[in-house]
């Protein structure tokens, strides 16, 4: 029996919470794919721990999106019963793990953005979003430190690790522009003091990256052509495969609980 997708009334506030929740869930799921496969035990635990933090953040944000929507959805239906086109995450977070360098570069790009983002959201006029941000920023601080230390170790390591880290930076760079894009609905929330204006964080994001990448003897690309679409539901082919795994239990056994 096919399980149909839920419908979501995407008011600007619902959409805003969903986009952040989808980023956290999809990146958390990607990192969980390393569980049992990381190059060493400590790193296996590190990536799984970070995945847990992200999935925890996603749960809070989904619950809030469901409450803001005020229909019958909840954190589980939002995660398990939306199809690819209904997902609103950044293209960056759905990109495959690739090699270890690619996973850590993706992690650096995202956490160097998420860390100041959550800190800015702590002053949101929306009390729930401010509270979620206050929890999340504590976690993003050490997610960023973890990624930074690895990029330095890889970039300033062997020829092989240097070349792989640089290739990952060059490959993923085009997915970073989307983090700073804002649509009309979100612009209104920014004016209302509820949402964070990501444009104001770009300088700090770039400064963090330049510092880390410089220490790592790597370079940031100069090209500024950016790939977009995730926020509007236009995804790369990778997300569908990820969701088919993430959602397989609920799609196969509708309503299953532990």
């Amino acid at each position, binding site marked *: 029996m096919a399980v149909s997708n839920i419908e979501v009334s995407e008011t600007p506030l619902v959409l805003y919470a969903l986009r952040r929740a989808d980023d956290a869930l999809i990146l958390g799921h990607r990192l969980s794919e390393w569980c049992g496969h990381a190059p060493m035990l*400590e*790193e296996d*635990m*590190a990536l799984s*721990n*970070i*995945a*847990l*933090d*992200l*999935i*925890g*953040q996603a*749960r*809070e944000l989904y619950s809030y999106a469901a409450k803001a929507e005020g229909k019958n959805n909840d954190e589980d239906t939002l995660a398990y019963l939306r199809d690819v086109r209904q997902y609103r995450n950044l293209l960056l977070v759905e990109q495959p793990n690739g090699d270890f360098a690619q996973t850590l570069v993706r992690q650096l790009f995202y956490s160097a953005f998420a860390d100041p983002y959550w800190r800015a959201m702590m002053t949101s006029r929306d*009390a*729930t979003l*401010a*509270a*979620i941000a*206050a*929890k*999340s920023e*504590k*976690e993003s*601080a*050490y997610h*960023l*430190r*973890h990624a*930074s*230390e690895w990029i330095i170790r890889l970039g300033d390591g062997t020829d092989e690790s240097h070349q792989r880290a640089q290739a990952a930076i060059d490959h993923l760079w085009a997915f970073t522009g989307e983090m700073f894009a804002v649509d009309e609905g979100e612009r209104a929330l920014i004016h209302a003091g509820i949402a964070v204006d990501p444009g104001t964080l770009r300088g700090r994001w770039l400064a*963090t990256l330049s*510092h880390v990448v410089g220490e790592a003897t790597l370079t940031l690309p100069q090209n500024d052509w950016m790939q977009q679409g995730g926020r509007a539901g236009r995804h790369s082919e990778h997300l569908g495969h990820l969701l088919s795994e993430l959602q397989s239990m609920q799609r196969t056994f509708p309503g299953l609980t532990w």
Partner: protein
Amino acid sequence: MVTVLENSAGLRQRAWDAAASVVDPEIPVLTIADLGVLRDVTVDGDHVEVAITPTYSGCPAMNMIALEIEVALERAGFQHPKVRTVLSPAWTTDWMSEEGREKLRAYGIAPPQASNSRRALFGEQAVACPQCGSDKTELLSEFGSTSCKALWRCKTCREPFDYFKCH
């Protein structure tokens, strides 16, 4: 039979004591009161409600703790207790009691330092070994056996140990 009516302050204290007896399933020497996870207990007539705050967003122990609070309260004679999760203000290791820190150390886990050190991009921190007290220690991994711990090693006694990281 004489029924002694408990005043509301006494009732609340009894509910608080019951809830405060619940221990962290991952670190069973610490109660949720030691951890600062237990925020409030309110008793209104027959209704008792306990407010707890999650430690880490993804900490899987929270569901277990909520369940154990309900069981502890029912055992103490409170019907249909409720557990509410409050997110704000966000939990910090600064709320951990002195007694809790001492219990952690005795259990072999280095207690958390003040949270103002957590923002450094490349952290330089000295954590004393909970076994021998030496401060010649090194970080092995920022991530340990649970979300709240990091893995360290003592260079003096050569023992590895968990550090409850500041949050």
